[in-house]
């Protein structure tokens, strides 16, 4: 276990360095010259040259990479091409908004999916099971951007229950929550569907095993058999799935944030692409990857904590 932890901790910076190199290459390989972009296409050559000087673009590639690397650890991601100012503060707000949304969506989707999966497994082949599984198949196959649009139309325009889009004043006030409900529901829905499906199949697998029969024979109540014995054994795979799904959730937030005008990292990155604002793209993609790495590390650690048999 300790050896594994050590291996992970050593590996993480290597992968992180790789990620930083790739995001560095996004700008290097792109056809855009940052100095021209910042100075404006019609600027005089001296002005462009001055920008080049101040951005350090006339230095060698290695020096530029070194500056980029140092900048990241100072939380300095360069100047936005379109707004002509450092992107530090915008990025920080966007990051917090996305994390808030993802956590919100993650919590409700787990809380809904596991009971759904357990019920479907216990009542296998009844109408409850079929309805749940049918619904989850639809949840996977229907494009969630369209579902989001329809939900928006029904809930916000027809029924006028929730605000249409954007973000409230504060996260933890009722106003802020109201803005977050729909994006969080949409972000969590596909996740809920697939977690419910996997919970069901894992539970079915576990419920067939001998030790479950033994606990039943021992006269334990159904609740204890299900929750203490079956679900605990099924949870192993669930943790991995929830972890990787959280990664997809990060990428799903790109779509959902754009539909609901949620000022998070996903919206920020797409705005960056649409306006060829490379520092914005670079920084937001880097942050997404770092978040994903952190989630994966947590999953691995939880995994070995839940099942002490696992030795890496």
């Amino acid at each position, binding site marked *: 276990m300790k050896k594994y932890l050590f291996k992970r901790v050593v590996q993480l910076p290597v992968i992180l360095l790789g990620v930083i190199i790739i995001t560095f290459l996004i700008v290097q390989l792109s056809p855009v010259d940052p100095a021209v972009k910042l100075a404006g296409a019609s600027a005089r050559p001296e002005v462009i040259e001055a920008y080049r000087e101040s951005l350090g673009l006339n230095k060698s590639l290695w020096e530029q990479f070194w500056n980029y690397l140092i900048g990241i650890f100072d939380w300095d991601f360069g100047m936005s091409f379109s707004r002509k100012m450092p992107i530090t503060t915008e990025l920080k707000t966007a990051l917090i908004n996305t994390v808030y949304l993802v956590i919100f969506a993650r919590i409700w989707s787990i809380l809904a999916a596991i009971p759904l999966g357990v019920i479907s497994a216990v009542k296998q082949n009844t109408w409850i099971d079929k309805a749940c599984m049918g619904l989850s198949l639809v949840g996977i196959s229907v494009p969630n951007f369209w579902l989001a649009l329809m939900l928006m139309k029904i809930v916000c325009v027809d029924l006028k229950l929730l605000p249409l889009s954007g973000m409230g004043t504060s996260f933890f006030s009722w106003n802020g929550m109201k803005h977050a409900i729909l994006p969080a529901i949409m972000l969590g829905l596909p996740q809920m569907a697939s977690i419910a499906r996997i919970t069901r199949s894992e539970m079915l697998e576990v419920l067939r095993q001998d030790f479950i029969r033994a606990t039943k024979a021992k006269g334990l109540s159904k609740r204890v058999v299900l929750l203490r014995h079956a679900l605990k054994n099924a949870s192993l795979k669930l943790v991995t799935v929830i972890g990787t799904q959280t990664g997809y959730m990060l990428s799903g937030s790109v779509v959902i944030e754009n539909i609901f005008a949620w000022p998070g990292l996903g919206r920020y990155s797409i705005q960056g692409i649409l306006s060829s604002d490379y520092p914005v793209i670079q920084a937001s993609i880097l942050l997404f990857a770092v978040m994903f*790495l952190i989630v994966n590390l947590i999953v691995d650690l939880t995994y070995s904590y839940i099942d002490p048999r696992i030795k890496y």
Partner: protein
Amino acid sequence: MEENTAYSNLPEQNSLIKRDSGWRILKKLCRNKSVIVGAVLIFIIIFIAIFAPVLAPNDPYETNAVLAKKGPDKAYPFGCDEVGRCVLSRMIYGARVTIPYSVLALLIAVVIGLFFGLISGYYSFLDNSIMRLMDVLMAFPGMLLAIAIIATLGQGLINVTIAVGLGTMPAYARLIRGAVLSLKKMPYVEASISAGASDFRIIIRHILPNCVPTIIVYSMLEMAWIIMSISTLSFLGIGVTPPIPEWGALISSGKNFIMSAPHISGFPVIFILVTVTGFNLLGDGLRDVLDPRL
């Protein structure tokens, strides 16, 4: 579906499947409900794509200001979009965009992934470095690697296809590497090593053919994801340029009129739903029959 999985997990069942002839596998496939339904759905979509000019009631590119946002009727079964183009015809022609480009993206992923996977699995001295590279690429969750590649290549349908393909590639490399690692220990591979066969021959003649079932199963499930990604990127506005009738772009063009004319974005969803469900069902069914270990 689940019953089948549980059944095929029995060890004797497993070895039976491996010894099956092609004919018996085909018979097994025909008995699997998901395979049948999935294959039928995909067949319908491919049929629509091939016979688009015959099936489409109107010209998908012809605009008509009078017909803008018109609801469904006899001449225009699914109504007209915001500039008066027939929605159904655009959906039907959209199959000619989405399906071939998704297949192209899949091919990019399979070919490059296969290359890295085979090399990494077979030559253990390259394994570590290739897999760390894949780890780095897989650190970009879901579509974000594709978005990063689009940022570099620029927008447009072909760039999106390349980006989605490359974004899927690391998962293939890892999958195939795993398969190669277990195949390398098989007696017949060891036998051909001791018989003095060249590495190239062993990889191409003995390892590659045995990776094929895994690749096919995984590709069906991956196709669903690729179609969804290309549509999503078009929806976000960084994929297809108008007037190409890609399905995601069709939904995107209707999103501003979702209150006054929900049919513009509503009907194209049907095709995405059918195609994605088809590939998911086919993939699940094939997995149950061909590769119970996956």
